């Protein structure tokens, strides 16, 4: 039993140690790419003079729940701590 717990503990430790930063990094990257894509597609909502592309309407339902988050995220002033994190 103790051996089993130790094994799991070690596995979790190494997983966290080796992969977690990676996964976090990938998720952040995914988020950023998503925000950038939303910016070039929905940018006219923020007054960027993009001519609305024809596929915008098809992407709208997909992004609708994220629009508020996107707006806040791209317009928010980033603090020094957040900058350091990056």
């Amino acid at each position, binding site marked *: 039993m103790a051996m089993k717990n130790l094994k799991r503990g070690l596995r979790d430790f190494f997983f966290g140690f080796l992969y977690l930063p990676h996964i976090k990094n990938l998720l952040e990257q995914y988020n950023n790419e998503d925000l*950038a894509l939303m*910016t070039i597609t929905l940018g006219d909502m923020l*007054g960027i*003079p993009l001519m609305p592309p024809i596929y915008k309407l098809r992407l709208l339902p997909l992004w609708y729940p994220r629009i508020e988050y996107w707006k806040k995220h*791209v317009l928010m002033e980033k603090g020094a701590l957040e*900058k350091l994190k*990056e």
Partner: protein
Amino acid sequence: MTLQLEKGMSFKDYVETHESIKFFFTGGKGGVGKTIAAAGIATYFANQGMKVLIASLNPVHSLTSLFNQDLTGGVIKPVHGIDNLDAIEVDIRDRVEAYKKQLADRLRWFLKWADIPVKATEFIDIAATNPAFEESAMFDATIDIMLEQGAKYDKIVFDCAAVANAVRLLGLNKIYGLWLQRMIKSRQEALSLRVKLSFRKEKAMEEIKKDPMMADLLNLNERIKKASSILGDPTKTAFFFVTLPLALPISVVQRFIEMVKGFNIAIGGVIVNGVLRRDVAEKGTEYMRNKYEEQKHYLEIIKERLGPLVRAVIPLYEREIIGVDMVKQVADDLASWTPEKGLLL
């Protein structure tokens, strides 16, 4: 029977009573002779001693072929053989490239400003590729000519592309205006949200005062407003429709007139092109006489549906209209027609 028009006004009378009109557009179905009509109008004014510019807005230009001299290159060139007449075949390729670059720069700036750390190249390539650029570049070029060359010339004649393009071109004025209004509002909202979301309010306020995107938008809006005030002013702008005595071009003109009304563009009138003369038909073969009879039917339709709007009838010449001499002939025929002469020549 000459299909005389009881009501109506000739081209000459029209332009003499509407002296202040500076910008002329010609439109109609493909192949009806828009370029020929535009060249005829331009040459008529040049013959009167006015300084005239003819501008081709067609993506595929025909002025070089029509005047039979090199007018390519997207710059204003004098037309040899006709005094006071300059011509330009508007080239939008550079303009589209400039658009793409400007938009890409703005987006790059925005993504940096919003602290979104991504390699933006692909994103920007996607965003800066839009089929509407060509259209809006042509519209932009038209406004440029109106605003910049308007002061240098007495008359400017625009040779538009076929109907759909021309309507889009003129309609863009309205659509662009509405879009810009929305854009400016969005930008204001975005900027005020930016201030709300920042913890150094003064800095944010300073920043939004200098917002380059807003400056761009206001600049564009100013141009659109100026263009609208010219395009929508019947004392400055008139649109001439060109038709052949055939079923399809006639119905296109009818529909076109309805569409143009929706865009507040003044209608100068209709020019009927390619009318077979009686003396030519009578001398000709049976085929020619049949064509003449067929044409009569369509001219009756023109009289009935567009009668009071007809300003000129240009005959079908024995030779193709190529070269300065033929264009001068068109200008003479354009100016010498009167409603009393009727549609049948």
